[in-house]
C-alpha cells in the first residue's frame, strides 16, 4: 500500500512540474494564477498522501484543511486587482516591458 501512495505522490509531483511550466512561462498573469491554483490543490492532496505514508493522517488533515481554506484568498485578491487595473496584457519573461494601462 505504501508503494501505491509513493507512486501516486510522484505522479502528482510530475504533474505539478507540468503545471509549473504554465506558471513560469504562462503569457498572462491569469495563466500563472490558474497554474498556482492547481498546484495548491495538488499540494492539499499530497499533504494527505504524506500523512498516509507516515501513518499519522489526523495530524496532516489539519494542515490540508488550512490549505483548502486559505488557498483561494489569493485568487480572489488577484481578481479584485484586475477589477481595478484592467491590464491583462502579457509581460514577457523578463524581456518585454509595457506600461501599465497601455493599449495593445
Amino acid at each position, binding site marked *: 500500500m505504501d508503494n501505491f501512495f509513493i507512486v501516486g505522490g510522484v505522479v502528482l509531483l510530475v504533474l505539478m512540474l507540468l503545471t509549473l511550466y504554465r506558471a513560469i512561462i504562462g503569457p498572462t498573469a491569469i495563466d500563472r494564477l490558474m497554474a498556482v491554483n492547481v498546484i495548491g490543490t495538488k499540494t492539499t492532496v499530497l499533504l494527505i498522501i504524506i500523512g498516509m505514508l507516515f501513518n499519522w493522517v489526523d495530524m496532516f488533515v489539519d494542515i490540508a484543511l*488550512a490549505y483548502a481554506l486559505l488557498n483561494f484568498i489569493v485568487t480572489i485578491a488577484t481578481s479584485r486587482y484586475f477589477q481595478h487595473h484592467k491590464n491583462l496584457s502579457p509581460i514577457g519573461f523578463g524581456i518585454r516591458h509595457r506600461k*501599465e494601462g497601455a493599449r495593445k
Partner: protein
Amino acid sequence: MIWQFDLLILALGVLCALASISLKDLLSAAIVFGAYSFLMCLLWTEMGAVDVAFTEAAVGAGVSTVFFLAAVYHTTRTVKPRRRGRMLHKLVGLATAAGIGLLLLSATVDFPTWADPNSPASVYLSPYYITETIPMTAVPNIVTSVLADFRGFDTMFETSVIFVAGLAVLAILGSYGRRQRDYEPSPTGKDVAHQSPIVQAACRVFVPFMQLFALYVVAHGHHSPGGGFQGGVILGASFILVAISYDLRVMQRRLRERLAMLFAGLGVLIYSGIGAICLLLGGNFLDYSVLHTILPATSPIMARSHGMLGVEVGVAFTVMAIMVIIYVNVASHGKSDRGL
C-alpha cells in the same frame, strides 16, 4: 523522509524561486512566489516538521501573497527597463555572490547529516524535551510545550516583534488617530461598485467556518500541530477575506482599526501578564506551575498546560489583529477606507 518526494519537491522549489526573482512583472512574481511557499510547506511536512509546515501553510498560502498583491496594487507592476550596467560591476557582483555561496557550501560539509542521532542537538537537548515533556507539562505536542513553556521567553518576544511590526506599518502608512482624509478617486476613475454576488455569498457562508477552524487550531495546539500563531493568522485571514469579497469598510464595521489595535496590545498584555502573575505567586517569570494555587482543581503539571493555553490565546489575539492592521493599511495606502 521519502527521497523520491524530496528530490522532486526541491527541484520544483528551485525552479519556482528562480522564476520569481527573474520575472519582471511584480504581480506574476508574487503569484509564483506563492507557489514556492506551497512547495516549501510540502517539503517541511515531508521531513516531519508539521508545525513549521502549518505556519508556512497559514502565512504563505493565506496572507503573505495577499500583502504583496496589496502592495503591488498601489505601485506599478513592471520594472522600468534599466540602462545596461557596466560589465565590470556585473562581474564583481557575480564573483562575490559565487564566492560567498561556495564558502557557505563548504561550511555545510561539517554539518551533521540529516537525522543524525549523534549530532549535538539530538544528543543533549532533544532527549530532555522528548522524555520530560509529558511528565512535566502533560502536553502531547512537544513543539507546543517547547514553544510556550520551556522557551516561553523567546515566544513572548516573538509576539512583541509582531506587535512592533504592526506599529511600524501604522507609523509609516497609517492615519490612526488622525482625522479621516478625504476620499481620492480610484486610479482608474471608477468606483468599486460592482462586486460579484457569487463571491460575496460564498464568503458569507465560508467565513464563520474558517473562524471556527481558527479557534480549533488555537485551542487544539496542545494535541496537534497548530497554536496561537497559526490560528491567529487564519483568524486574521478570515477578516481579510471579508475585506476582499465585500469592501474594506464592511470589514471595518466588524473590526474597527482602533479595536484591532486594542486587541494587538491585549494579546501582548495577556502573555506578559500571565508571566507577571507567576512572579506574584512566587515562581519565576513564565513558570506556569505556580498557577495551580489560583486555578481551581489543577495540579502543578496541569497548570503548566493551562498556562500554555493562556499564552497561546494571547499570541492569537496579537497575530490576528496585526494581520488585519497590516492588510488594511497596505491595501488602502493608510487611508483605511477602500483598497484592493
